[in-house]
């Protein structure tokens, strides 16, 4: 019978394979797949996961080439000028200083509210550096004040607790805070005998310990951030520590400060 002849069987086989054609078209081409012998008019290639299917247009004969049988094409030597290299380095270096997150923090001796941005880095992003601007209302003084804080955080562990939540059971670090205003000085003004007070009213050194709770936002619902972190910290500064030292009158709640904050992870 005619339909028994081998050519017919082969054609039927080809057809049944080509039926899910749209599927094959939509297959993604991995970036390391290089097609060197492509000719626009005759040969067509379909790339799907680990195979390349090659066939001629208007012909039902096709070849499936397994990925491991494809010889890696030697990349063509692209001649980069020194200028290109420089631009490449320039972009790469500037990209590094794109901040990865923003923060808002309440209290903590850096202002009523502080806002800022920062960078996380390290193998597990366990390091974090922030630059914050704080605002102190005037309260009983003549003027409201602005402060600036450089903060270094270290989070040794991060634990996934499921349902999109993870926690950093320990955060610790230090920050330097400076308050703007003529009444504060780094070095004593000249009118004082040298070393009369021996401290700076403008620059404060703080240490802190705290904990964090992070919620990963569903990728479909992300808008500004991919995760939000709530944190709290207990901190103290150099002047409070010196005061607490040798005085039993001062209790921990006198010289320790509590602060809260939110971190929005952008990148």
């Amino acid at each position, binding site marked *: 019978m005619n339909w028994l002849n081998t050519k017919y069987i082969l054609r039927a086989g080809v057809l049944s394979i080509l039926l899910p054609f749209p599927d094959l078209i939509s297959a993604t081409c991995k970036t390391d797949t290089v097609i060197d012998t492509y000719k626009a008019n005759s040969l067509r290639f379909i790339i799907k996961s680990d195979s390349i299917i090659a066939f001629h247009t208007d012909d039902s004969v096709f070849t499936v080439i397994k990925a491991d049988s494809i010889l890696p094409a030697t990349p063509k030597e692209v001649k980069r000028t020194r200028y290109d290299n420089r631009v490449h380095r320039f972009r790469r270096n500037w990209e590094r200083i794109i901040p990865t997150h923003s923060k808002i923090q*309440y209290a903590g001796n850096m202002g009523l509210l502080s806002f800022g941005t920062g960078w996380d880095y390290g193998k597990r992003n366990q390091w974090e550096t922030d630059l914050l601007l704080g605002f102190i209302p005037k309260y009983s003084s003549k003027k409201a004040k602005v402060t600036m804080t450089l903060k270094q955080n270290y989070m040794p562990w991060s634990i996934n607790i499921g349902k999109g939540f993870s926690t950093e059971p320990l955060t610790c670090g230090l920050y330097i805070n400076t308050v703007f205003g003529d009444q*504060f000085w780094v070095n004593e003004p000249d009118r004082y005998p040298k070393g009369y007070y021996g401290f700076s009213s403008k620059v404060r050194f703080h240490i802190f310990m705290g904990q964090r709770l992070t919620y990963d936002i569903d990728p479909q619902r992300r808008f500004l951030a991919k995760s939000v972190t709530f944190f709290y910290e207990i901190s103290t500064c150099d002047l409070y520590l010196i005061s607490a030292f040798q005085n039993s009158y001062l209790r921990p709640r006198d010289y320790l400060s509590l602060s809260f904050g939110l971190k929005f992870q952008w990148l």
Partner: protein
Amino acid sequence: MRKSLYTLLSFLLLSGCGMTDYNPYDVHISGETNVNAHNIEKIEANCKGKTKLRFVTMGDSQRWYDETEEFVKEINKRDDIDFVIHGGDMSDFGVTKEFLWQRDIMNGLKVPYVVLIGNHDCLGTGEETYKAVFGPTNFSFIAGNVKFVCLNTNALEYDYSEPVPNFTFMEQEIKDRRDKFEKTVISMHARPYTDVFNDNVAKVFHRYVTEYPGIQFCTAAHTHHHRDDVIFDDGIHYITSDCMDCRSYLVFTITPEKYEYELVKY
């Protein structure tokens, strides 16, 4: 899990009350303000009509919280003291909380007290905190028949931004309520010829001091050690109290005939 989270959050909020600090120099005052005015009212009421007065001078209590607390306990054991004059330097760094801590300790006194401004109290926002918590930096009150004129003498801190000492105030005080007092005591933090006093006007200052009716003596603090100086050869004593680290205070007694004082260690 959720329950423990709520417990943690409420614990944080509860313990957070009074533990959230905005800045060491924020001048965010909680508790009593205008302390001197309140206490002056009490002193004037308590001492009305008295001709024999007994009061204590001390000062320089900065960062000596335990010692100051003990001082308060010592004074509370006695019942012969009319009031206490703190000669200034409650704070070491001008930090807002220092004033509040010291105020709270001194509020433990059974007798009223007044606080002068010291040079350390002027650092950073210290002067603003002092003014909010205690009141004006120059003030006076009358106990019995004695007027106490309390002066800001920390000229170095003001760098000519304000007249220190304020001679207009001193002149005014010679005349003010003149019929209510017969004797005068001048109190200051730093006496003439100490580093923060404007020595150029030391003699002028003293001339104003001598113009006060029935001038008895001057009290001071600042140098941290008890001294009794007659600076200008006219018999007017400038009597300096120890700092709180020395665990001592001076008790002055003014009687119709004379005055005397005693250094008390505790």
